[in-house]
């Protein structure tokens, strides 16, 4: 129980602090845990940041890691979730030669079917954006590879939980 590795998403609400990324990543580094992806952004609460970290580990491990994360003074609260607990997305960008867009009809079909979006087109290249599950992104990457990709980049996972996270309540409790 809790001893099989799986993908977990960690959501961390924090004070906006310069050194915190260093503190948090050190927790993983010390234990030789590879971070699959990490994203930091503002959250729904003003002045509060949100880290979204994707890791593959056992449930036993992640509980301990969460303890270490929450122990950091500037961390308000940390949660971990399964795939089923969250709605999640990644997004990616492709830079591709413009000629192909006009010469290869198949590319137009791929774009249409994958629900990818053309962000910009100029004489030399066009940029394609796609958000979704990792598998969809990978499929699109495979299909376009055949034609040649000039540049590719994929973002870290971002995730929203289905359940309520009671951060605002926690912060209000401090005021009282």
């Amino acid at each position, binding site marked *: 129980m809790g001893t099989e590795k799986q993908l977990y998403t960690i959501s961390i609400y924090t*004070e906006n602090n310069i*050194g915190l990324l260093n*503190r948090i990543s*050190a927790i993983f580094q*010390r234990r030789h845990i590879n971070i699959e992806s990490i994203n930091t952004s503002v959250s729904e609460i003003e002045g509060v940041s949100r880290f979204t970290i994707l890791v593959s580990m056992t449930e036993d491990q992640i*509980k301990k890691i969460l*303890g270490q994360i929450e122990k950091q*003074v500037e*961390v*308000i609260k940390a949660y971990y979730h399964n795939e089923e607990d969250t709605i999640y997305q990644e997004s990616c960008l492709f830079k591709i030669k413009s000629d192909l867009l006009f010469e290869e009809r198949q590319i137009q079909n791929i774009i249409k079917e994958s629900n990818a979006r053309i962000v910009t087109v100029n004489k030399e290249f066009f940029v394609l954006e796609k958000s979704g599950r990792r598998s969809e992104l990978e499929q699109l990457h495979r299909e376009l590879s055949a034609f040649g990709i000039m540049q590719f980049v994929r973002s870290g996972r971002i995730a929203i939980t289905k359940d309520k996270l009671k951060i605002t309540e926690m912060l209000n409790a401090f005021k009282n």
Partner: protein
Amino acid sequence: METVTSKQKEYLEQPKERISGSEAIVRCLLAEGVEVLYGYPGGAIMPVYDELYKYEGKINHVLTRHEQCAAHAAQGYARISGKVGVAMATSGPGATNLITGIADAQIDSTPIVCITGQVPSHLLGSDAFQETDIVGISTPVTKWNHQITKASQIPEVIARAFYIARSGRPGPVLIDITKDAQFEEFDFQYKKCTGVRSYKPVPEIDENSITAAATLINSAKKPMIVWGQGVILGKAEEELKAVIEKTGIPSAWTILGASAIPTAHPLNVGMVGMHGNYAPNVLTNECDVLIAIGMRFDDRVTGKLDEYATQAKIVHFEIDPAEIDKNVKTDVAVLGDAKASLKKLVSLLNTNSHPDWLQKFKDLYTIEYDKVIKNDLHPTAKGLTMGEVLKEINSQTKGEAAIVTDVGQHQMIACRYADFNVSKSNITSGGLGTMGFALPAAIGAKMAAPEREVVAIIGDGGYQMTIQELGTIFQNKVPVKIVVLNNEFLGMVRQWQQLFFDKRYASTEMVNPNFVAIAQGYYIEAKKVTKRENLAAAVKEMIASDEPYFLEVCVEKENNVFPMVPSGASVSEIRLE
């Protein structure tokens, strides 16, 4: 709760006043009740030293001979008093020299605040002279750290630093302050910090967990308590004693828990761990309920984890949620402050006694006595043992002394044999095992508790790691008693070489200088003992002295510390020889 002295009030919540950042730093320290700090000056912290000069008489800065020792002195100060120790250093090498002390304070939960100077903010990141990223470097070994680049941030950040260092599970905080912020003037006012919204130092006690703990304890046939430093940090000594005495539970301690309950208490069954006592180690694997209080199941305590107390139900009283289930899975976790938790617990416990179970501890003690203790304390061989030195110190200080130890064989012997009548009397580097800790820590301890006898017990190896602090002792007339147990070896490493590396004594033999002459070179009274018949008189003279005193005792070169749980073995496989 914390008391605020009238002297502190002079600096607390006074009307705003325009002063420099560096003066503000000194006033912040005064407002926090700091009377003494340890440090070493240099370019990037000079404005603060200039203010310390102006505030002489109000605050005492002690110049150590190395920044590492400033941190250790601050630790010794904190460990004996329960107050926050303060260390100060310049940027670059001054700051990096603090790191060993900071790491030690982190792993042993010691509240210290370290203040470092930093290059002016416009030079940050330019590889300026004596610039190091000390915030980056200290991040993994601090409870919290922060860099200040504007004078106006000083009061709030320093207030927060003290609050974080001392609250909850204590720890070290480092504040790095750029030189321009030290020079800058601003409207100063100091308010103490009473909370940080993202930080919950003490978890609320769940009454259900207390009830569950009480139920388990009340139904136990062979319960055993293992307490740690959490009891001392949480000032829960009386509460623990009440629990022990009401239930009659045999109680053992981790190295950092030593002295919370007097050594002579009939239910005190000794130390657990690698060189702990035989009975509590063996019976850890026989008890039915193991009650851990303010301890963290360090690997030196548990030995092989998957053979540690597997038969027992585990109850864990702990302030730090991250410690629950970290190493040992608990059946009942009681989160919260030890004092409050034990107070609630005791009223739910049945008055009880466990004479047969306690007898088992006594029987195993007898075995340990015959095989180990007798030879340590009443040796028949010619050479002096470390144990008999401890016995002599015990009898002449009547167990009232604070014992500050370094790291190695002498440390284990001291912790095993020192008599402790008073809490906060065992000051040692437990988690990090920092050689060189004892001499500077003893300085801090003696200055924080001048009324107490402070005896540093150090090996000939570790002594030479921070021997230069004799200068600090001499200059500041700190009447610590220094005992070097000289076996002309890095004894503990030599012991391992003997037991596990076929006596290949690689780089553990020490050719030592004339220690007495060195102490005398610092104008410290010094004596050397090589014979048993001279020991008692020498210890007597040392204890009688009102001044710093150095005593070298030449002990048997190749004695070993037993019992011993070999690394990787289970606690019940503890060896007596």
